[in-house]
């Protein structure tokens, strides 16, 4: 039996991952949404359920308009995904320990096979970025031929959310370990950042002051959403820079 205190973390396995999103150069093309769905085997919900508010995308592009017609101003596109909070409100409320904080990656992880589906975490998420498997959704052809073997396929009754492509983090760490080196900045990135044609999404180690993401994050005009709630989010947004 392994007790939690016996688990030793090696230096190359720990790290604080973060993201910077530049809303000024985001074109709202939704390439990140599609790439994320393909990378993470996200269910194909279909039109009817999507229209009813059950779309399961782990990242979504939010856009609003301000003012009254005809003087309408569109706000910049706002990609919204799990903010991987340092002090996450979703974690303490799960009765089954299915929503937990990972020591190694400093991320909020969802243990699919431990989830019983109380959906308390989703209620308590101020960013509303968790998606629930309301049904076992059928994938239309040819989608069943396109599964990522590194990611679990979820069944009905389970909560899921953005993982910062934890499978890619592990793959890069394993490769670096086998070559006896650290993971290089920019060696890999998440599916959404990789697909972004405008490079509006930058991913990397925020605890490494030399990395691109931490240099961007320390620029003056970055904001973190709903920071006033004390959630310590790990995603920084730029708007009006």
């Amino acid at each position, binding site marked *: *039996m392994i007790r939690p205190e016996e688990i030793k973390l090696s230096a190359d396995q720990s790290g604080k991952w973060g993201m910077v999103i530049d809303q000024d150069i985001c074109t709202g093309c939704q390439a990140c949404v599609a790439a994320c769905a393909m990378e993470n085997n996200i269910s194909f919900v279909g039109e009817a359920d999507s229209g009813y*508010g059950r779309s399961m995308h782990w990242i979504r592009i939010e856009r609003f308009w301000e003012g009254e017609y005809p003087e309408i101003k569109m706000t910049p596109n706002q990609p919204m995904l799990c903010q991987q909070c340092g002090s996450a409100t979703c974690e303490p409320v799960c009765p089954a320990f299915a929503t937990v904080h990972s020591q190694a990656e400093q991320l909020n992880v969802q243990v699919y096979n431990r989830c019983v589906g109380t959906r308390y975490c989703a209620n308590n998420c101020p960013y509303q970025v968790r998606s629930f498997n309301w049904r076992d959704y059928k994938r239309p052809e040819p989608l069943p031929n396109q599964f990522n073997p590194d990611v679990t396929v979820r069944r009905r009754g*389970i909560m899921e959310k953005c993982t910062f492509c934890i499978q890619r983090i592990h793959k890069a760490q394993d490769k670096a370990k086998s070559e006896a080196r650290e993971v290089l900045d920019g060696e890999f990135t998440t599916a959404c950042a990789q697909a972004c044609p405008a490079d509006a999404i930058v991913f990397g180690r925020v605890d490494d002051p030399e990395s691109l993401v931490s240099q961007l994050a320390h620029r003056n005009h970055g904001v973190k959403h709903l920071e006033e709630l004390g959630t310590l989010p790990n995603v920084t947004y730029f708007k009006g820079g």
Partner: protein
Amino acid sequence: MAEYTDAVHANVVHEHKDHAKEHLREKHLMLDPLPRGKMNEMVMESMTTTSWKFWVVFGILSAIVAGCLFYVWGYMISEGLGVTGKNRPSYWGLFLVNTVFWIGISHAGTFISAILRVFKAEFRRPFTRAAELMTTFGLVQAGFSVFMHLGRVWLAYWLIPYPNQRMLWPNTHSPLTWDLLAITTYLLSSTMYLFLPLIPDLAMARDRSTGWRKTFYKILALGFRGTEGEWTHLRNAMTIFAFAIIPVMFSVHTIVSWDFAAATRPGWNSTIFGPYFVVGALHSGMGAVVMVLAIVRGTMKNMKYFIRGEHFDAIAKLMLIISMAWAYFFFNDYMVQWYGGDKWTHQLLHFHEAGPMGWMWFAMLIFNIAIPWAVLWNQKWRSTPWIVFAVGLLINVGMYLERYIIVPVSLSINRMPFTWRLYYPRVEILLGIGTLALFIWLYMAASRLIPLIPVWEVEEGQMAHELKKFGRETVVSVSELE
């Protein structure tokens, strides 16, 4: 009684005094004793006299339970929660409303039985059992509703702290874990509290029945013979339970309220939710008790002797006080939240009153405050069963709406305006009807099997009550038996 004080003639005075006594007997169960054994016969008769109408209603309810509860639930388990009306902001819907509602219903049983027993309120005597049954059966429905709510209900046992090889335990930080423990504790203790005062009545039924009923009561009565020692033990146990179950009752609904109050959501994160929910539970629970009593009185044999206008009058007074307490807590919660100045809370409060579900908010206030205050001040109306029944029904509708506003209506608004969306229940409605049908079904079945009136308690009260004359006035007095 003022009329006879002016009388001059001795005979007239005497006759009028008899009239006054007769009037008091008619009014008060405690002053209307029957010959020894008569009451037992009446209760046995009420249990065994079953008309064809009972079986028709029972059959319809069985069909509803089978169809709406078990069939629809099975369908929902096999299809997933997609068949319900839940969506992204409203992850919790009618199931949680039903859970809170049924736990609320279950509160009146303990309130009437334990608190009134502890405070020696004499009017409680004939209907403690009817109220305790509501507690147990209401909690069964709450349990059903909370399990329906789970996405993978077949793994619900993971929420129970049981030893396992992987050393995985439930998360004690989660209010849902507290909830499960609190509801289980309440169900177990309220069932025991229902059973203890039932033992003498089961023994009574055992001595007056034959056939399978005799065997049934013989097993349940645990060999109770009514010796002095047995009564002493039973009394001690009941006293301990009556005191111990009161904090359990308060804790249950407080913990249910923490499911909401412990969340970082506008409108939910309120410090007053604990007592507010407890008072709300009593409000709906008292309404449900008078509804049950009115139905029992109207449909079962010999019940008009046991349940009288004075009992409706007494419970209705409590309803009025609890309605006032509820209004106080509601106003307190609303006002402090509004002055808190948080923009999301403002948005939510505005949505409650002026949003598409605004009619619910106003209906809630009318049913929970305006109608009880307008009706229950009048003693004549308070003593009329059907009027109190109607008020109780409306209070229950109002309290259901209150829970609906707290759960799905408040969930439709959050800090991410992009996800705002209304919730419309679908199969949840059928399952809710199913739990209601199961509640009535269990109650009807129980009314055939166990004595609904605690005979020993009524007889004890009647022995303790007497009429004493102070000067020219006849006054009711109670002697202390215990």
